[in-house]
């Protein structure tokens, strides 16, 4: 299951598995955010290309308005996926302290 919720100011915590079935929920949540947002991925276990698409769309929207999406606490598995897809060049990615 996936959960997404507000954390510290300017931070959103995403946890669980972000698969194709979760896209609408996450997209609707992220659409409400503005400015520069930190997405805490510390408890995100899994992401597929559908999830990457949601992050991409959000990044485009925020950057057009001068903001952006930062990804923090990204585990090794997720970093691999971001790297394979070239998303490491689109997002600021902060690795998890493994």
């Amino acid at each position, binding site marked *: 299951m996936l959960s997404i919720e507000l954390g510290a100011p300017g931070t959103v915590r995403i946890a669980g598995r972000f*698969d194709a*079935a979760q896209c609408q929920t996450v997209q609707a949540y992220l659409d409400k955010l503005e400015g520069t947002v930190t997405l805490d991925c510390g408890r995100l276990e899994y992401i*597929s290309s559908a999830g*990457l698409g949601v992050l*991409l769309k959000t990044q*485009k929207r925020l950057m057009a308005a001068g903001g952006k999406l930062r990804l923090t606490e990204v585990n090794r598995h997720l970093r691999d996926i971001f790297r394979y897809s070239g998303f490491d060049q689109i997002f600021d990615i902060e690795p998890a302290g493994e």
Partner: protein
Amino acid sequence: MSPPRKRGPNFLQKNLGSRFRGNDDWVAFPSSQQPAALRYIAAGMNLEPILALAGKLAAPYDLATMLAEVMDAATQVLGAERASVWLYQPETDELVLRVASDIAPVRLAAGTGIVGTCARTRQVINVPDCYADARFDPGVDRKSGYRTRCLLALPLIDHMGALVGVMQVLNKRHGVFDTGDEALGGVLAAQCAVALQRTLMMQQVIEAEKLRREMETARAVQMSTLPAAMPQVPGYDLYGTFQPADLTGGDTFDLALTEQGLLIVLGDATGHGIGAALSVTQLHAMLRMALRLGADLELAYRSVNNQLAERLPADRYITAFIGLLDPATHRLRFHSGGQAPILCYRAERASFEEHEPTSFPLAAMPLERLRPATTLELQPGDVLALLTDGIYECENARGEQFGVERVRRLIAERHDAPMAELAAALLRAAQAFAGEAPQADDMTMVLVRREPPGARRAFRRGTESLAQIFAFTADAVIEPELRRTVDLVIEELFTNIVKYGRASDTMISVDIRRHGRGVRVTLTDPDAEYFDPQSARQPDVGAPLERREPGGLGLHLVRELVDTLEYRYSREERTGRILFSLGGSDAVH
């Protein structure tokens, strides 16, 4: 064959022209006599019967009727008492009198007597006084009590110049046969020759057709003994197939669950045709009966052999593999009467074992004692492959055989595919190898694979199925890292099918097998358009943000993560299969 048509005098004129002019090779009488013939016919004498005959000769009569028609017409047209038709048999160079009103069938060597001379010289022979002619045999008259005064022998030569026989016309009612009769007889003979030849050919066609129907019946009997559906045995993938050659061959196979275990049979009787078909049908029936009566493998094998040895003709035998597999212990015990090679693919070592027959072919002679059966234990992933020599000995145009090596190579490549697919691949390869050459022998095979551990489940098309898929993979793959990668690849491939595949009610099945440290996964779409995920467009993963699109990313990730990726599509079944393996190499994602 053309239907009878109305024909005017022109028809005869034309025929006289074409048949009697200039072609001395098969002209019925010397061309110097042509004017007499034309005069005779032009005078209009006896034209009606010969015209009526022209119509009759075009009718689709059987041989006896056609002969009767010809002889009836000859007596009428030529005003004779009797007529007979001798048919020429080129194989024996004889003339055979099959029907002549009240005269018994007679054989005569070509060249002897008047009829034989007529056949040899292909010339009309007009004998005004038979008893004065040395060639005449009065013996026939003595037997029948009939007195032959004069006769006219006419060669029957068809339009291709082949001798069909000789028509003999006896006793002109008033006087003797003259040149006019010779001419008219020649016209008649030419027509009769063509009609008889056509009738003889028809008869051959009909006999061939009868034989073909008998063959079809035998084939139907043979097919009816084959299992209609493969038995379902948990943990096993079983497949048998029988691809008959044109003629009824002597192959059979059987896969049946009995109380003694799974019966596995592959048999090949000597020869083709009904005899061979019936031999294997008997083998089939006896074997099932013996097992039903509680016989063990040895008793069943021995009894069936001895029964067949007693019943079948001395020159007939059947090579056969007869085995019983216990699906619980995976132990296979078999006897093979001359059926070889017995191939067993061992998945763990990726190598083949070849086993020897345990006995001579079935029905060759009675069996007193039997060597012990061979026992094999099938391990996960192992494939038992039994193929008849119709496949191994299938020849290409250069006379080379398909051979065991090609079979081994295909099995090694496709041992993890469904057995039905492996069988189809083997048959396709053998047929491609043979090229244009017609299939000379039955092609039959039985494939038995012990499934490697794993699981298979079908899912509805839709992203809502993902949760069920992940629950399924969680059971099949325990290692969390491996499982996450497996999930990702399955999700990408599955959502791709859902998005771009057909809107179908059929389920997509996912099959996961352990393979060493990794897994082999097969996604099967039973209602698919052709789409090879390997050929999908490569996204630019280095492009700046503005130009980034999410499309194509999923398949790109798949290609990054898997060890191997393969796509198979069956046009006939509209089935697409994506096979991938991962986790087998050292790089664990």
